[in-house]
């Protein structure tokens, strides 16, 4: 007879010395884990609740400006710094970690409308309503040692005067050209005091401009005549124009998919387009209740942040129609500009109340260095919460956000208006011959036409 019995010797299964780690044995057989789905569900519920407990997105405000902040610029080479320009001509460089001003760039007489930094981070270009474009050199020493430097005024390198007020400026990625917009789109070189090239299409002011991160010769602009125009610098003629029903306030290109851009529109939504196919929006992002003023993509390309006239900042997924997060404070008034920090962890919003505010991109994220076990635990909790987030109890907790009363009321009102219109449309359809009334898809509805 052949016989074998399980026999475990204690030495094999326990540690030798107390300095050793404990021995761990794994058996992933589902038989040993009864009711594992229920356990996962309870963990998902607890993870959702913990996430809400630790959700403290507001880090701090940077005050110093004495007028509303109209524009901001990121320094591509320096993670900790951000430039901001206000309505009284004051430009400051901030150190985000200490939330203090590093140096000031005085000079503009009117509002500063546009700010941008060159790709190597050494030059700052600003333009304003006083018809000037100013070029500044960013002091490298000041950016490195931010403790003692404060409020040091810096002289402009060059001042170029133009004929009309300038509305926006953007620098080419990797090149040495920058574009300003106002009455028309002008392409400049750093050294020349006159624009190298000019584009004009239509008679209205062009209010924003953005260069494509992937294709340095492509740029998108939006104008007061409710249009979005794409220009190619190599062709020296404008490429394409898209006319919508309402004006676009700002455009941002997706850094990871440079063919797609998202436009922040006056009709409270953002429209994502594929630059090759402008007759239909890729996605419509709807959640704001007032005009969307500014938009910026995260470096991951997976989400973007918008700031709106309704005093809130929202974060949207790049392909989702609704926001995943909303940030608001009683003290934050109309948000005019937002920026996503270059490490995708922070959001900076500049608003009407002269403050720049620093927020976390993920409200319950633990900042700082995490131990690998902590990191794994956070990842696990995120994953288990996502697996069960469609179930009612978990969904209720995950979805819950406190909205300020005016926003809540405005949302209800918009909802009731949309529902009423929809119902009327349905009834019209039901009482007319099938096929006579055609509903336009939401993605096409706001587009009037495309022009070559």
């Amino acid at each position, binding site marked *: *007879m*052949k*016989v*074998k*019995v*399980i*026999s*475990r*010797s*204690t030495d094999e*299964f*326990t540690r030798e010395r107390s300095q050793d780690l*404990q*021995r*761990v*044995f*794994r*058996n*992933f*057989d*589902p*038989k*040993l*884990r*009864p*009711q594992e*789905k*229920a*356990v*996962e*569900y*309870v*963990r998902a519920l*607890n993870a959702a609740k913990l996430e809400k407990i630790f959700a403290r997105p507001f880090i701090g405000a940077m005050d110093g400006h004495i007028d509303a902040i109209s524009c901001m610029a990121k320094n591509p080479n320096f993670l900790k710094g951000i430039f901001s320009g206000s309505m009284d001509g004051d430009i400051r460089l901030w150190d985000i970690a200490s939330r203090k001003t590093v140096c000031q760039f005085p000079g503009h007489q009117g509002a500063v409308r546009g700010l941008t930094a060159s790709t190597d981070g050494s030059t700052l270009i600003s333009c304003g309503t006083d018809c000037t474009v100013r070029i500044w050199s960013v002091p490298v020493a000041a950016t490195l040692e931010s403790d003692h430097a404060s409020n040091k005024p810096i002289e402009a390198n060059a001042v170029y005067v133009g004929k009309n007020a300038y509305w926006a400026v953007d620098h080419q990625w990797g090149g040495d050209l920058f574009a300003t917009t106002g009455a028309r789109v002008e392409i400049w070189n750093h050294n020349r005091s006159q624009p190298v090239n000019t584009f004009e299409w239509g008679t209205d002011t062009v209010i924003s401009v953005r260069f494509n991160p992937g294709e340095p010769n492509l740029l998108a602009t939006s104008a007061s005549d409710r249009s979005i125009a794409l220009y190619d610098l190599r062709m020296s003629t404008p490429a394409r124009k898209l006319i919508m029903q309402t004006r676009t306030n700002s455009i941002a290109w997706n850094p990871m998919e440079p063919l797609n851009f998202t436009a922040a529109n006056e009709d409270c939504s953002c429209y994502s387009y594929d630059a090759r196919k402008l007759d239909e929006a890729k996605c419509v992002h709807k959640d704001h209740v007032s005009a969307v003023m500014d938009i910026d993509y995260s470096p991951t390309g997976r989400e973007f942040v918008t700031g709106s006239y309704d005093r809130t900042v929202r974060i949207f997924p790049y*392909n989702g129609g609704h926001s995943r997060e909303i940030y608001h404070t009683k003290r934050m008034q109309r948000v005019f500009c937002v920026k996503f920090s270059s490490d995708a962890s922070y959001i900076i919003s500049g608003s009407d109340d002269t403050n720049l505010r620093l927020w976390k991109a993920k409200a319950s994220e633990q900042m700082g260095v995490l131990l690998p076990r902590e990191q794994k635990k956070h990842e696990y909790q995120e994953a288990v919460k996502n*697996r*069960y987030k*469609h*179930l009612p109890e978990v969904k209720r907790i995950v979805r819950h956000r406190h909205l300020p009363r005016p926003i809540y009321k405005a949302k209800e009102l918009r909802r009731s208006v949309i529902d009423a219109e929809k119902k009327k449309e349905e009834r019209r359809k039901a009482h007319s011959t099938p096929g006579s009334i055609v509903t336009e898809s939401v993605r096409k509805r706001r587009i009037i036409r495309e022009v070559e």
Partner: protein
Amino acid sequence: MGLEEENGGSAKDVPPTEQELSAEFDTTLQKYLRGEGADLEALKDKKLKGQLAVREKLYGNSAKAAAKFEKWLMPSEGGYLEAEGIEKTWRIKQDQITREVDILSSRNQYDIVLKDLGPYTLDFTPSGRYMATAGRKGHVAIVDMKSMELIREMQVKETVRDIVFLHNETFFAVAQKKYPYIYNRDGIELHCLKEHGAVSRLQFLKNHFLLATVNKFGQLRYQDVTTGEMIGNFRTGLGRTETMQVNPFNGVIAVGHSGGTVSMWKPTSAAPLVKMLCHHGPISALAFHPNGQLMATCGREKKIKIWDLRKFEVVQTIPGHHAKTLDFSQKGLLAAGTGSYAQVLGDFSGSQNYSRYMGHSIAKGYQIGKVSFRPYEDVLVMGHSMGWSSILIPGSGEPNFDTWVANPFETSKQRREKEIHTLLDKLPPETIMLDPSKIGTVRPYKKREKPTKEEIEAEKEAAVEAVKDIALKKKTKGRNKTSKRVMKRKVLIDKAKKPFIEKEMQEAGKVAGKRKLGEETELPASLKRFVRKKAAV
């Protein structure tokens, strides 16, 4: 590598072919896949379809990785007993086995004789390391099975009917004469559970931290031992109950009654989930297979029946056993204890056909009260009227344990951490259901259909029956005429039928209306001019 023997080498030397290896891999893969994949063809939403397709692929990859690494992560193989020649496994005696195995394992075969203190029942912690035994006359002991050390021994001076460990070896509950008590590992009495009264059986639901008790009148009570809240208190209403077992797969409690019925309960409903008529006589023993699909019951008419719990059908009837106690091992062996003989049955063909595997008879006159397999060991412990005995049953225990599930070599630090983690993962009582995999699934969308004719008829009859049961007031002073009573009954029945008849007439009216329109078009052409289009003024 490709050398071939000229004489045709024996089959043993040929390495397993690729096909065999892949077949083996497939069986292990099935184990980790946890069911069929989702049907994505029925989805119309392209985005959702894409996301789910990615997820399904990830599940497949993780199952494959788990199956691949099994041979390194789980080095121990299970025990086995193979008879050679004309030998039969059930004739092999324990002393023959103990002679063949190593010293450490042979120490697991022993008898402990304690003559005075009554039949002993026992319970194991989930890791199999600690055992709690209680004699009927009040002797309670906690034993560490690895070192055979007596951790605590006490005399509660009362009749003890059952003993069960709570989540740890540090807490255990004893069903004493009047109430169940909860004790600490040091023997300190922590709680006296007065609401339960005199109970005959205790069971602990590990994931939910619920202590379930049943008394001989059939009252089932659930109590949460972390908060002390009484979750459920039900009267089974099916007569005297003698047995109770918890199904480890889904947390459902099965109670066996003297009428031969087995009812299954969950703490959130006052009615049982299932009522099965299992035997012609009272149920004497109940046991659940760890995979939750098989249940073994034994009735006084000396038959053991194996039930499939998905279809609630008998899979096998094993006659000739009057087992007072049944237990399934982790590997699916069934132990039945009758008088002083313990029989172990095994399912070796994989088709749920249990046949004799091993047997053992203890000293004549000793009556076996409870058999229990030790988890993660090839050992069967029997509590009998003169103490307890432990025998070796090769192939009954799971050879590879998971440290984070149940660790026989647990240190006190690990035990404390595990306690915290299981408390954080404590399941609410609502998660107990017959099919635990339903959690997280979406209920299929049911279109509200019109009730069929039969359903309407059934409703009508039910309403009429309800009315017939009403007792009419008995009137006096000559007003209680029979004819009047009959009239009253008739009126009540007509009232109950009225709404149904009205509905029928409405439907008939609608149909008639439709037919009317149709009729107009059916008139021959020559008569059409006589059809009135407008009412005559």
